[in-house]
């Protein structure tokens, strides 16, 4: 009897494995747009430190919503999860390994650049400070990524190589300039994107089938919450995901 089960399990594994091996691939793309009134005028950050440097390139806008002229929302995370959230996503052979070993977050002009950064477990996050003043980098992502708080002198950099994939976002801040804030999400698969200035994103070579797409930006989940919404990725085709970010309050 026991052996029968083992056999069945083996068969199932084989079948699943086979289905993954023969998985077909498609594309998820779309645009995240602003659900409020346009044009959107962001709040100005009150800069009370290092004004000479921080304001050298003009005023700093608050980044809770980064809305372009045409209404695209920048710096929105979009990623896939398995619809049942049980197994790992099948990964396209060309994406087995991340292309870059390191991803960089810089701090020019008292802003984190980029403001939203997604990376894959195993990649090293390089915290750079190309500015002439000192910054610190204080990152924390709840339970999985406890984080640390380190000073980066002008022109210096630190390397963070212990980030692990987590459902919790890693927040990055600078205590010297408390308005500076950035977000990092870490995945154990390559199917994630951050929207560009026009609010557009594209996830290529995604496995065909039913998956969930999850969208998050500074102010929280966009449509669908933490589980996201289910989409069907067509084999060899493209599925469009277009969502609106509704202003909170």
């Amino acid at each position, binding site marked *: 009897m026991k052996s029968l089960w083992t056999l069945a399990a083996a068969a199932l594994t084989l079948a699943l494995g086979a289905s993954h091996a023969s998985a077909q691939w498609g594309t998820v793309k779309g645009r995240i747009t602003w659900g409020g009134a346009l044009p959107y005028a962001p709040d100005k*950050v009150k800069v*009370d*430190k*290092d*004004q000479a440097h921080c304001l050298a390139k003009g005023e700093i806008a*608050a980044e*809770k919503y980064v809305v372009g002229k045409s209404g695209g929302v920048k710096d929105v995370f979009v990623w896939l999860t398995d619809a049942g959230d049980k197994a790992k996503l099948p990964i396209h052979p060309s994406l087995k390994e991340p292309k870059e070993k390191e991803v960089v977050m810089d701090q020019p002009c008292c802003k984190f650049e980029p403001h939203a950064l997604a990376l894959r477990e195993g990649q090293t996050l390089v915290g750079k400070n190309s500015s002439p*003043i*000192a910054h*610190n*980098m*204080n990152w*924390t*992502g*709840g*339970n999985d990524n*406890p*984080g*640390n*708080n*380190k*000073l980066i*002198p*002008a022109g210096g950099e630190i390397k963070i190589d*212990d980030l692990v994939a987590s459902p*919790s*976002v890693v*927040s990055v*801040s600078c*205590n*010297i300039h*408390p*308005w500076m*804030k950035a977000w990092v999400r870490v995945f154990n698969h390559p199917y994630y994107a951050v929207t560009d200035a026009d609010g557009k994103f594209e996830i290529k070579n995604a496995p065909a089938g039913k998956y969930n797409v999850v969208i998050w930006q500074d102010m929280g989940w966009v449509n669908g919450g933490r589980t996201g919404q289910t989409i069907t990725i067509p084999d060899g085709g493209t599925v469009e995901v277009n969502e609106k970010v509704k202003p909170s309050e």
Partner: protein
Amino acid sequence: MAATDKHYRSQKALDVVFGVSCVLLLVTTFWMLYDDHVKPYKEVQRDFRDVEAALYQRVLLDKYPAEKMDDVTAARQAVADARKTLDEAKAKLSQPEAWFKQKGLEKARLEAEYQDKKANFDSFGSLLNIAIDDRDAAAPGPKKDSLAKEAEKRKTEIAALDVELQGLQKKIAENEYATASVLADQKKAEEDVGRAEDAFKKLTNEFDRAAKTAAQKRWKFGDWFRSLPIIDGFASAYRIQQVTLNDLTIDYGGFKDVPRYDRCTTCHLGIDRPSFDAASLAKLGDTPDEAKTKYKDAVAFLKDRAKNKEALGFDPDDLPGDLRGAKLSSSQVKEYCAHPRLDLFVDANSAHPVEKFGCTTCHAGQGSATEFVLATHTPNDAAQARTWTKEKGWRSLHDWEFPMLPNRFVESSCLKCHHQVTDLVRSGSKEEAPKLLKGYNLVRENGCFGCHEIAGTKGGRSIGPDMRLEPSPALEQLTPDERAKVLSDPTNPPGTLRKVGPSLRRLAEKTSEEWTRKWIESPRGFRPDTRMPHFYNLSTNSPDVLPEEQKNLPAAEMHAIAFYLFAESRDYLKGADKYRLANEARLKELEDKQKNNTTSEKERKELIEVQRRLELAVKPTPLSQRVVDGDGKPVTLPAAANDKAVLAGRRLFTEKGCLACHSHRATEKAGTDGDGKEIAAVVGEAHFGPNLSRIAAKIGGGNKDAGRRWLVQWILNPNVHFPRTRMPITHLTPEEAGLVADWLLSQDAKDWNPDDVPAPTVDTLKDLARVYLKKAPGVSPLEVDGVLEKGFADERTRAPLMAPDADEQALKGDLTPEKLKYYIGKKSISRLGCFGCHEIPGFEFAKPVGTPLNDWGKKDPARLAFEDAAAFVKDTYHVAELRDDPKDPTKPAKEWEAKEGKRPYEKFFADSLGHHQRDGFLHQKLMEPRSYDYHREVKWDDRLRMPQFRFVHAKARAGESEEDFKAREEKEEAEGREAVMTFVLGLVAEPVAAKYVNNPAPDRAAEIKGRQVLDKFNCAGCHQVRAGLYDVKLTADALEAIQKRSKKDPADFDILRAHNSWGATTTQTGEKATLHGFPTAKQAGEETYSLALTEALRVDRGDTQAEVRAGNIVTVPREAVENLDVTRPYGGTFAELLLPYLARKNATIYNLDALGESDQGRAAGPPPLVREGERVQPDWLFRFLKEPHKIRPLTVLRMPRFNLSDEDAQALVNYFAGADRSSNPGIGLTYPYLNVPQREEAYWRERTKQYVDRLGKDKVEARLKAMRPAWERTLKDQLAEAERQLESAKSRVASAKEDAVRQTAMTLEAETKKTVDALKARVDKGDYEAYRHSYLESEAYATDAFRLLTDASSQKCLKCHRVGNNIPDQEQGPPLESVFERRRPDWVQRWVALPQRLLTYRSVMPQNFSNDKTELQNLFEGDSFEQISALRDVLMNYPKVSELPGVRYGAAPAGGNK
């Protein structure tokens, strides 16, 4: 009378008497023997044998490795095999001994032969040499030939001998080999046997041991025989167990100090055995078939082994043939089970071993009794009483004065030896007697000691907690002389507790008479959670129970009390209160006498005292004249805010810390500020200060301006109204205080609108006055009516007819209703004892009105007046069998609810009251204090006067039904009442031998004392003080979670391991680990639990080794912490309330992470005081506590100024240092004095020498060169200063008028001139040798290290901290120039190394130096650790270092400030 042989008595009668007596004696003897034989304890002991046997059978079963039987069989087989091999090895020789002997002989013989032959061989060798020499020496010829032949012959002989020798050698070797190989085989076989046996033992060892115990515990024939009647008189198997305590005596009323004999262990035989837990005992009755079979297997296994001649150490036949059951009743389980917490009690290694403390010391009862009822067992609730009656024939013994304490009150005994009470809080804040501590705190908070004396000493000996009121005036108001006098009395040291209510001296400014009346009538009606008890509308004085003629008296009394308070208050504010007037009058009198030199010694003393009293009673300045700030400086009252601006008051109220002590319903809902921005809701649970929700209805009592003025003053400086208040000075500006006051007063309180207390008629007042007048000393009952018509005539009020301070003086002259009210008010206050909690003018010297509680716990119940209280209970309450649900004691039992409008009343207490027992009386006294007057005809003023308290203030929970809430509220109140009772019952005033009184070591004593002060001022309302302790079951998941955080950071400084945040002080090896830390604000998820560690954790369990350093968050599965011991952290509530509030206020700065934490948010709140002792210098902390100043720029609130006495402040300083020294021994903390070695000259020289050596010649030269400009400027400075002095000397010479003065001035001028010349010469020559010398000697190190601090390019420190004149544009950290007086040097070093380790939250300060990086060598040469050490050194010497030439004038080869 003639002699006769006739017996005086009839012989026959005598024979009958003799016969009958013989029979009677015999019967009695047998009866005695029988009675002795059937003593109940014997049955208990006999049963216990069965229980023991059955229990050890279970232990045996538990240890029987049934599921590993394959392994066991294999191991056993391995043993057998090994033995067999050994036997075979041995068997190889039929007669091993003979064989070995023979081999030995053979060896000896061969060796002798060999030696013999060898000697021959050697001598033949020399003969051969001679022969060869001879041959060679001989001339050629025949002789030579023959000689040669001889030599050849010798050679042959030697060769033969050699062969023989070699043969012998071989033989010897063969012989040896034979023996050795036989021995080696045996040895190996023996080792194999040993190994196999070890492996087998590993599997069965525990089982064998359990089996052995089980076999021994069986009731055997010998036992049976020894317990036969009569025979058992000699060596009985039954025995009375007894503990004799000569030092812990009993006081049997008349018989004092009787040694204590505790025989409890005669029946409680399993009390000290850990395996006798209640659960196992309860299960003894079950003998499932499965277990039976298993048992049979186990016995068979043992027997089989015995049959195989395996050494077991016992005879398995002693084991019962089958698994026995022992069905135990619930009371038997209790009887036989082990004491809970053997680590703390009973066990010989515990803190309270039974040999030292006995049983009745804590449990009370009749220790020498060996029978259940006679030992005065007391059931814990009605259900237990019922069970006991059924199973044990239990009944209540009325005659025994100290029956055993029911389990619910057993903690009260702790008070006998733990007089400090807070010593029951362990270091690390675990509460060992939670109910007693709760009771103590309730007594303290509700001010029971205001009326009831709770003195800690009797005749100079400590007998219990000291909860006496502080002297008035308070210690710190006294002159040193007075203080010394008060403190020097060892039998009566001054009390330490302040009155719990506010002072009523300035009541007239605060509110109105009308409000006061309504308040007195029903304090809880106005403020449901107030501590003020109810005096009216109780069971004796509510109008529905009063007789017609008394119905109006309560209202009249309330009016009178309010009238008195306001009359006195107004006089006080005018500086014309009776106390002052009386003292002033007396002063004048005494001064007059002194002028006439007619004062007696007594009067002279009195004069001084009166003067002093008047000095202390400073004349008040009414608020209408001025309002002052925290420092006493007058301020202008800010203008009232408009509707919009007033909203800012709410923000201030929320974030400035008010909610740490107060609550307000308006903050519980979100609102907006004046700019329309959201103000987040904050639900505070604080009840240290009053709930302020309805404050608007109280303050000013209708007069808006006066109310506002009062409130602003109270917020700015509460000491104006009440110097002894525990409300601190908040450091708010007058404008801020105005906004808070305006907001508070704008909050709606219309939901409180009771009718005013009806005004009394003059007749009612007269009725009431008559009650008191009739009893007034010196007033004749006959004159009362007359007085009530016309008042006392003037001459009647003079001495000696009436004392000048008699209350009746108030009725002098024409009688008005006001005079009557004043008189009644004063009489009522004095009867009810309001001054126990409040300062009331006219009651400066009043004595407490309540029964002293010093020894209430042993009060003779016969002296308690139970009256008809039992009937009251029957008529008034619904008597419920149980209060707690037996399955889940945290929930109310099913029957615990109101029925037909009657509140629930636990049957346990109803019974106790019925049996006239102490606890029953006390319970009813607290529940309905005046019910003892029930059905009694009592005069108005003879009625009981204890008010009714409410101890617990439950809040309805979301989603809770009305009935559920009511039941829970009643239960919580009952628990609070029970806690107070636990405390009171523990007050027995029995001096215990000194060795038993808990006498903690100094550090611990500091902690205990400090904890009292922390509680007194609610420090924990804001600050986190102690981390929590969490026992975590080390499941696989938990271990994984711990392992996950165990990674070492190469940037961390391993060198700091001795500190308990870097290296754990203990290694956890068991099933569970204790984690020190704080739970994160939001838990990670429903399945997990997150803790931020404050101490490093090391786990070593063979399979898992992990060390997690402090500052890490460990997230463990929830089931790993369930049902385990948890000690919640002490303090920090307000800091936690602030986090979400601030996050709503400014999400960018204070945003919350996934665990609900925010570093900036934490930094904005009150700082954690965990590790405060190792952080701060003791003398600085002392000064700071007395006069707190602003330090950390990031906070949104400021530490307020409490009116701490020096003693309080000192106790707090010692608390932190003592706690940290004991919990973190690796850091070698010292207090109260602190040594800073970094401030010693030798230290600097040493450091500088090392540094100069490290730099090397070239770099030193470069630095010296760079120093030159600094020296030039320093020298110029010096010269300028000297010239300035010269000028001043010159002018002094010029202005001198007298010769002598001129002479001195001229000498000074000459000296100064010399200095100036010398300096000028140095300037001219460019002579900097002195500077150079001291630079190399003691400055080079500091000069460079200082650059680390102020370097502008790396901005390590300057970015956030102010350093001298270098001010960052937005300060984030405290100024560094004051570090030298605030911080301990070790702390500074550790903090700079890694702030993360030392905080309870993620630090805002980044890690500036990494262990694995070497940086900034241009500033200071050395590795990172040397750099942080150097930073510590300059910070600890800031004032000195900042004056060095290189620092002043910033001579730096590179970088450095300008």
